[in-house]
């Protein structure tokens, strides 16, 4: 009797567990599908023809009925005075290079200074640097300043912001460098390394994972930047990809379904560099990215 009872209890417990686990998977998969759907549609619609968009009122299917690259063709044949994919990418890359070659390292240097150099006044200075006035507050005076310098319409104002780096990355690096073991830096001091030496020989090699993360996220931030490129890059020749895409969206009557394949083609192409970047360092981003975010 006793053993039979226990057997039944066991079975009920197992059943309960099974239901819980199944519903857990159901929820996680449902969220995953919801997250993926926009990407799947982006891809799918980009390979449909305008004809298909017109003819089929039921839009829910994912596999294009007649596979066509009409959207891509139309995108590349678009009036180059309004949209040019490769010029957009080239312009964005100019800003990216400045960020990757200067801004990132400058920010790391700030992080090192705040995290490892015990200079007087570093706490108030850190707070001062971290108080972020919203960009919209400063945009008008900064615009006036740049326009007095004759730099509006050139690429310089946008480059400058990325040249000096920012305290968002600086603060992240500060946390990271602060959490490195003290002994390493003390040993370096004993060996006679100054701060420049410690920065280049200790901080940078030890920060590699954090640097990769910030490089990737910084790259994406620059890629997606809208406000300052929109304001300063008035010259058609200088506009970044994202700004050109907004212009493209405004140029075609985007409400029309027949225009969607072309717009989605632009969306797919503009996502590919970021996706490649993400997939090539996803192990780092997923492991370290979330872990350090908590400490901040």
């Amino acid at each position, binding site marked *: 009797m006793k053993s039979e009872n226990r057997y039944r209890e066991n079975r009920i417990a197992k059943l309960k567990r099974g239901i819980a686990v199944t519903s857990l998977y159901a929820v996680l998969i449902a969220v995953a599908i919801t*997250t993926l759907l926009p990407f799947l549609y982006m891809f799918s619609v980009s390979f449909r023809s305008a004809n298909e968009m017109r003819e089929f009122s039921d839009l829910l299917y994912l596999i294009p009925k007649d596979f066509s690259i009409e959207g891509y063709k139309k995108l590349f044949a678009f009036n180059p005075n309004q949209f040019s994919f490769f010029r957009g990418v080239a312009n964005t890359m100019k800003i990216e290079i400045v960020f990757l070659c200067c801004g990132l390292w400058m920010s790391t240097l700030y992080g090192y200074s705040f995290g490892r150099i015990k200079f007087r006044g570093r706490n108030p200075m850190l707070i001062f640097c971290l108080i972020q006035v919203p960009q919209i507050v400063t945009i008008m005076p900064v615009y006036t300043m740049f326009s007095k310098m004759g730099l509006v319409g050139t690429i310089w104002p946008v480059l400058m912001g990325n040249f000096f780096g920012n305290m968002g990355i600086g603060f992240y690096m500060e946390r990271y460098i602060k959490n490195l073991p003290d002994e390493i830096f003390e040993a370096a001091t004993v060996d006679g390394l100054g701060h420049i030496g410690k920065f280049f020989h200790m901080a940078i090699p030890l920060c590699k994972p954090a640097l990769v993360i910030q490089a990737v996220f910084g790259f994406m931030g620059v890629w997606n930047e809208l406000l300052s490129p929109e304001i300063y890059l008035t010259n058609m020749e200088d506009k970044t990809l994202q700004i050109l895409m907004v212009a493209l969206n405004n140029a075609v009557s985007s409400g029309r379904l027949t225009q969607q394949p072309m717009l989605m083609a632009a969306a797919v192409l503009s996502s590919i560099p970021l996706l490649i970047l993400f997939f090539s360092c996803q192990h780092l981003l997923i492991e370290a990215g979330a872990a350090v975010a908590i400490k901040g």
Partner: protein
Amino acid sequence: MVGAKTARIPKVSKWQRREDFWGWLFISPILIWILFSSVIPTLYCFLISFTDYNMLAWDNKITKLTLDAYKDVFTSEGYWTAMYNTVYYLIGLPIRIFAGFLIACGMNYKKLRGKKFFHIVYYLPGVSSGVAIAFVWNYFFNPDGVLNTLLGTNIAWLFDPDWVKPSLIIKGVWGGLGGTALMYYAAMRNINQELYESADLDGASTWVKMFKITLPMLKTITIYNVMTGIAGGLNSFSDNFTMVSGNSSNTVVYWIYQQFLGGNYPLVGAGALVLSIFTILFSVPQYRKIVKDN
């Protein structure tokens, strides 16, 4: 006497002087940049908001000092609508945080298979091209688009003033959910497992462990999420810029941007200052934490 004097003016060691030198040298670029890109502009904003300067006027000179800009801001219907909208968009924040937390709890299940798949998928919205995402949601929200077909409704999502805000909230929650979940998941993994083991020895139930261990340990990350969520929400701009054409969904930032394009600089100054006060207020707890940590 001599002793008292040296106590009052402590001699700065050579080491300390060297630290001062390198520290200030290394941070000088950002200080200079902040001075020119934030401090002076904010002061300028503050000063010009008390004048009647108009960039686009025929004779753009300051003729008098006045509080008109503030009067205009506070009596302008556009500004208050924008304020209301900005607060309205914050509805998405608790939804995102709560749902993200639940998903993280699910992912914390030890025997979960395909963890890597979920990780990558949940990460995706955060690492995509912003305008591309806006394009897809434009397509979803199209009156003849996917969402209406799927739900069997006939809503002009982005054109109907009543629906445009919920639409943008849906998009926002979609975009932020996975990242929030992953952050919570990482935070949960960082909790010391010994706490749970000793709780198990005491015979604590799952719920007790949840309320006594997990939730308190997640306080920091929740505060972080709420604060950055509010500050980010107050400063949201891109959805209006890329997706919506009407004024009914304006955020404060977008309203200010419109005034900026219109050349009404005192109004920009006044509006922006009011906004920045709110933003900085919401960041204060974070600054306090930084001070405490250091």
